């Protein structure tokens, strides 16, 4: 293997660049084809001619708009909850974070480290044992508990960057600890909070697996809708929906990337 790489380095650019473009083609082909299918008369036949019918139909079908609204509601509520929990956690733990045993820190990271399927199942079990009826509320709580870990780490970084002299100066000037928090710390971490909220919202909006386990029978978010349509088979409605989803995701990420704090989370998935 070493030899092969060595050779590819010597001839360097043309070969390496070709591989790069083939990889890009591989990554874009599935989504590109989805978008193309949206405009085909028969999505499974390339030669069937083009149409705008599926897009027009999309705007008249409530079975698409209801899941979209559910997804937005869940996203907004769970992101807000995650922001509160994650920020409070970070504010409470920032001074001790360096002394916390590694084991405790990795406990907070569990939802990030472990596969989503385990997170989803353990949340499901949690709700079932508490005898909570699965539905809107459980999905919101599940999403929030998952994204709170991400918010926690974003906020922890933000708080560590704060100059401790600011708080000390405020203390010297006679501020109480409450005043220091609201008038010195808070204004400085608001940009981080906005980034954290947006990240939590995106995580929730895109989530499939955790919603799949904790939503029960009646609730349908957008990804769940796509999944259930996929199970039935490939339908034109599904392609319209995919197109809509691609547009929304692209918009969300453009907003997210414009926020410095969450950029690296987006790039690292």
């Amino acid at each position: 293997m070493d030899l092969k790489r060595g050779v590819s380095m010597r001839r360097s650019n043309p070969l390496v660049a070709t591989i790069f473009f083939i990889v890009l083609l591989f990554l874009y082909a599935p989504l590109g084809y989805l978008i193309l299918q949206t405009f085909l008369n028969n999505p499974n036949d390339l030669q069937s001619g083009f149409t705008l019918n599926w897009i027009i139909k999309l705007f008249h079908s409530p079975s698409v708009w209801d899941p979209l609204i559910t997804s937005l509601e869940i996203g907004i509520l769970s992101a807000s909850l995650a922001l509160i929990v994650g920020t409070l956690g970070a504010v409470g733990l920032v001074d001790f974070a360096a002394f916390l045993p590694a084991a405790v820190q990795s406990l907070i990271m569990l939802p990030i480290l472990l596969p989503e399927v385990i997170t989803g199942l353990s949340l499901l079990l949690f709700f079932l044992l508490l005898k909570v009826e699965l539905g809107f509320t459980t999905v919101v709580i599940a999403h929030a508990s998952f994204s709170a870990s991400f918010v926690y780490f974003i906020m922890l970084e933000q708080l560590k960057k704060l100059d401790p002299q600011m708080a000390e100066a405020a203390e010297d000037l006679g501020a109480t600890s409450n005043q220091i928090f609201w008038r010195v710390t808070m204004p400085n971490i608001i940009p981080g909070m906005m980034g954290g909220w947006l990240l939590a919202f995106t995580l929730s909006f895109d989530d499939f697996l955790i919603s799949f386990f904790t939503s029960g029978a009646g609730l349908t978010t957008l990804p769940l809708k796509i999944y259930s349509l996929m199970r039935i088979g490939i339908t034109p409605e599904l392609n319209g929906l995919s197109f809509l989803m691609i547009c929304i995701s692209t918009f969300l990420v453009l907003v997210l990337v414009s926020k410095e704090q969450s950029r690296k989370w987006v790039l690292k998935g």
Partner: protein
Amino acid sequence: MTFLPFLIILVMSFLERTPLGTISFHLNINNYLRSFEYIYIKVLFKTIWLALIATLTCLIVGFPVAYHLARSRGWMKQLGLILLFIPFWTNFILRIYGLVSLLGNHGLINQVLLHFELIKTPLEILYTRTGVYLGLLYNYLPFLVVPIFSALEKLDPSLREAGFDLGASRFQVFRRVVIPNIKEGIFVGSLFVFIPMLGEYVIPDLLGGAKEAFLGNIMVSQFFVMQDWPFGSAIAGMLSILLLMTLWIQNRWSRSNGFKKGGLDA
């Protein structure tokens, strides 16, 4: 709030399911012993094997990509990185659906091949192991490119120049200077791809069909089909232990390597 549910699943894995389908609070490790039965071990090894092959492929394909990016200059580099990740801005299920509509019997690949009469019957890719493999490759490749890329970026160019000045060939510089310096980045990056692959559920479910179940799929079916929560929890426990152990080893490994490097520098 974030880890309480994990405690519950851990406790559950030591309980027992009664024939009536209820849970009895009789602490035992039978569930764990059961997960060593042949059929489960077979699935475990298949999961590890496929994840390993997919990780290695990601590495082999990802290296030239990272290398190309590291060699590019200025905005080309930024653009290249962003291009690599744009597909990942869309929903995960959607990406899988894209693959399904590409690989299926009526998918793009088969349509084109049938049209030009290169094949007589549609290629069976979807709902086979190849489908799962391509799904893993598709969804994890960029996440391995980034660590290799940043390791290459951090590499001090004067190290390579020194190698050339001392009369080494390009191949020698690559093998003796570049590789040892980015080894750690590659290893850590590979683990961060390999570990989530072990826990995959959706990719084997939607691209592999029933025959190509991963450990995650067996676990979920214990919960939803067999209604055996304790045993499902035990599989989750085993999987978590496996993953956390891998992470721990990686942590130890990079730490001891860090010490060695520090010693050399001093």
